């Protein structure tokens, strides 16, 4: 547990606070434009597509596909020194093309990882105040 607690802890800001608050309740939400419906992640001061300032958070399905992935061998991130090699995947959520989130996958499942493979979100509890949306193969 000690090693896990050393992993970098996300620092919420005024834009991202609702994202982390929802995650704590195991709900995946993404900032969405109230005018054009476009999803922005990470959350932005204005909509990436139409520049509107009317932005809210909307639930998303948590379903998506693997856009790309890498296996990291460098022990260069705090708390991950003992986990190399570990996997990072980029998930493209089904709600919108190029709506991406980054996640881990167990290295043991490397043979199941392929670009285009379907994944779904789950929440990893990392201490009492932090839940992280992770993804796993469907």
């Amino acid at each position, binding site marked *: 547990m000690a090693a896990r607690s*050393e*992993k*970098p*802890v*996300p*620092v*919420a*800001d005024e834009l*991202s606070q609702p994202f982390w608050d929802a995650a704590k309740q195991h709900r995946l939400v993404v900032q969405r434009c109230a005018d054009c419906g476009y999803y*922005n*992640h*990470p959350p*932005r001061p204005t909509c*990436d597509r139409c520049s509107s300032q009317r932005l809210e958070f909307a639930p998303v399905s948590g379903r998506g596909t693997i*856009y*790309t*992935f*890498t*296996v*990291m*061998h*460098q022990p*260069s*991130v*705090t*708390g*991950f020194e003992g*986990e190399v*090699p*570990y996997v*990072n995947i*980029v998930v493209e959520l089904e709600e919108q093309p*190029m709506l*991406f*989130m*980054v*996640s*881990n996958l167990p290295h043991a499942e490397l043979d199941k990882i392929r*670009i285009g493979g379907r994944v779904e979100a789950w929440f990893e509890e*990392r201490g009492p105040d932090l839940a*992280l949306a*992770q993804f796993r193969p469907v």
Partner: protein
Amino acid sequence: MWHGKGKTAIVGIGYSELMRQSKRPLGLLALDACREAIADAGLSPQQIDGLATYPEAPFLGAGTRDGVDIVSVAWIINHLALAPDVRWYAQIETGMIAAPVIEGVHALMAGACDYVLIWRALHQPRSYGAFSGARAAGDAQFLAPFGCVGVIQSHAMAWRRYMHQYGATREHLSTFVVNSRRNANLNPRAFFYTKPMTREDYFAARPIAEPFCLFDCDVPVEGCVALVMTSAERARDLRRPPAYIAGHGQNTVGRRSVLFYTLDDYVINGQSLAGKLWSSAGLGPTDMDAAQLYDGFSPSTLYWLEAAGFCKRGEAYAFIQDGRIALEGELPVNTFGGSLSEGRLHGMGHIAEAVFQVTGRAERRQVPGAAAVCAIDGSPMLRGSGIVVTRDP
């Protein structure tokens, strides 16, 4: 065509020693490079009245001590006996090192100064690229908790996507890496000057962030490269043949607001640089006698080949095969070994080599009769700037 074509020139180059870790502070290495560049031009430091650099430390959490971690304009003013009144300076935060060169062109053409000194100094701490913070703020809040810290994994994942989309393989990419090393073996300044590399060496290298192995990453060095620029008119009276600046361009289409560099916009983003580069110079890809294309990671050069129009999108991995980009090939690429084999100088090596080629100073790497060469920095997925230099004004 640009009215400034051929009106300014690069007239001197200086290199400090390049090594993994120097015992001397970065500021002293920068003074070595600056003094050498000024002497190479046949000038004295007292004649330098314009200064520009791109001082950024290239990773998250790097130190910012002047003269140790970075080398600012102020540091050079305080430590080189320059003209009593430096008339113009710029410290650029975008576009990498060709951007200060472009600002130097503007300053010279506006008459703001007579001789511009440009440098890029890079520090290489032992913890290079590490994310050691307990707290992850900004975009890192969505990455670092997953052990994903941006640059290397982003580039590795973009290349994985490229391989998937176009059918490229590590075998294809190895052609580029091995060719770069072969060129570095002809470049006495290169970190890997005395170390040849075979395709077998490439495949035996340890993985870093798959599909990247060690040799897909540029070699981090500590050191500095400097150059001196002036007007074409003044250039004619100096010691070295001038490399005329024929054209320039910068990325102006921003990258998407996503967590990492995606492959999708690299051609569009890169074209925003290349369009200006080629139209200002009145030249195109087929006019280049060689191309020095940034290679922070090996595929970056392939992306530039496509974005700058040397080949079509999705074809660079095939384009580079069969000796086409070798010194003797139809388009010699990174004739000095690039960042992969000369050392990570954030594009300064690329500019220096473009100058050496068009001024006949490239020694054993010389492309016979080279009259026009481009040097492009950065990555079309992120940011970039570039110039075309020519033998004739």
